[in-house]
């Protein structure tokens, strides 16, 4: 079942740089998709378009039946409530505890305190940080901080989880753990996952669908792809 559909998407920045050129792709509900490519290939622009951080210059971006490209500014927040985003640099609030960082996402949405507590504890449990709820980010390792970021992204039970190089700052072992957490979310919660990454080992090991973007053009779409198939192209 189609969940995301990009049709002839073009993006040219005001500087004249073309980040994406005539990109078309569809992604089904519950899929796990890697987006790979060199630095400045257009991966981030592709990812940012899904949660309307960027708007296409031409073409349509449909997420969950909504044409994000035509969404009015005042309604963007409604789209973002259905999407969880995980960043390479975690973006945690340093003065809030693990619990507060995760709860922050729900508090911003005006969810009642009685609803917040069980949801936050469940999200923290999914990412395996039950023992650290009262710790502050600076008391956690990089992997643990990324888990908090994931917990915050999934606490509102989003239909789509977008990960922008989530293992970029982590060592290989920690990266594996983080990927396990994300894979579990995809399998158990049926959340669609789209992940931009440079990590060859992860892509090769997981054998998921791979989209290859080069110079803003989608040059490869492999169902059980890997960096090897990329190299073969």
């Amino acid at each position, binding site marked *: 079942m189609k969940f995301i559909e990009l049709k002839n998407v073009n993006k040219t920045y005001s500087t004249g740089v073309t980040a994406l050129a005539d990109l078309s792709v569809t992604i089904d509900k519950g899929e796990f998709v890697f987006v790979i490519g060199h630095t400045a290939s257009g991966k981030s622009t592709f990812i940012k378009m899904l949660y309307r951080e960027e708007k296409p210059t031409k073409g349509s971006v449909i997420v969950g039946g909504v044409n994000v490209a035509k969404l009015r500014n*005042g309604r963007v*927040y409604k789209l973002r409530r259905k999407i969880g985003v995980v960043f390479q640099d975690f973006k945690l*609030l340093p003065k809030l505890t693990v619990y507060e960082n995760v709860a922050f996402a729900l508090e*911003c949405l005006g969810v009642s305190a009685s609803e917040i507590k069980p949801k936050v504890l469940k999200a923290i449990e999914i990412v395996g940080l039950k023992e650290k709820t009262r710790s502050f980010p600076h008391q956690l390792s990089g992997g643990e901080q990324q888990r908090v970021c994931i917990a915050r992204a999934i606490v509102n039970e989003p239909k789509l989880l977008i990960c922008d190089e989530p293992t970029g700052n982590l060592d290989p072992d920690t990266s594996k753990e983080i990927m396990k957490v994300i894979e579990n979310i995809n399998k158990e919660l049926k959340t669609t996952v789209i992940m931009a990454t440079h990590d060859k080992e992860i892509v090769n090991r997981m054998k998921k669908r791979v989209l290859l973007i080069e110079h803003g053009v989608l040059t490869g779409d492999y169902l059980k792809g890997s960096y090897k198939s990329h190299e073969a192209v």
Partner: protein
Amino acid sequence: MKPFRIIGRSIRDAFKSVFRNFSLSMASILCATITLLVVAISLLIAGNVENATNNLKDELTIVVYLDKSASTDDADFIENSIKGIKDVDKVTYKSKEEWKTEMSEYNASFGTVFENYEQNPLMDSFTVTVKDVNSLERIATEIEEMDKVASANYGEDTVNTIISVFDVVEKVTIVVVISLIFVTAFLITNTIKLTIYSRRSEIEIMRLVGSSNIAIKLPFVFEGFIIGVLGSLIPVIVTIYGYIIAYERLGGHIISDLIKLIPPYNFVFLVSLVIVGLGALIGMVGSLMAVRKYLKV
């Protein structure tokens, strides 16, 4: 219920973040304190300048002398005619006999001079106060044209100079106060911008988890309100106690009795209210402007 929860959370978060980001909040509060103090002092001065000019204006009168041939009936008629002129406030009659008695009492040598005259050499008069000082000239001319009126004087040259000086002083005071308010707004807004700049990641996360723009702005607007109100506390204390003490020490006037100070109550409370309101408003608007920069959607 949701909007109320968002407002409640915004107020709670605003208080929390004032204390969590204490050093930056203190910088904003101190900036507000210093600038609002200057505004408070300038308001106190401006209020008194305005008051003094109004008092002096009230003392400007037209003195009308009647012809020696004017009878009591004529005087009554003239009095009624003067009262009928637009902008005339009060007309006080003083007969030449009253003048003579008053002058003799004031200085005995006048009495000796008057004894040399068979008839009273003085003239009956009216003292006319006006509602609008700018109409002095028009009223004086109208009175002078009346029958049996010898003269109507208001010290033309001096009064015209005083009026133009008053106008300049009033305008300058208004310009100074308004400029100071703008400078205050600029300084407070910029300090708040620095505070918010340090928290742009917080705003970014709020955007990405799906907070509406209003829900993002509210905590910062409340925070600006708190900073503005806290920043106005010292200026308010200085306004109230400083002015009361200064008023008592100076005995209610400056230089001479002519320049009277405004009595402290309710003047100090009015100025304090303006200062608190200004602090709160600038804090809120400043925060709103600063946070908008990070809300590109």
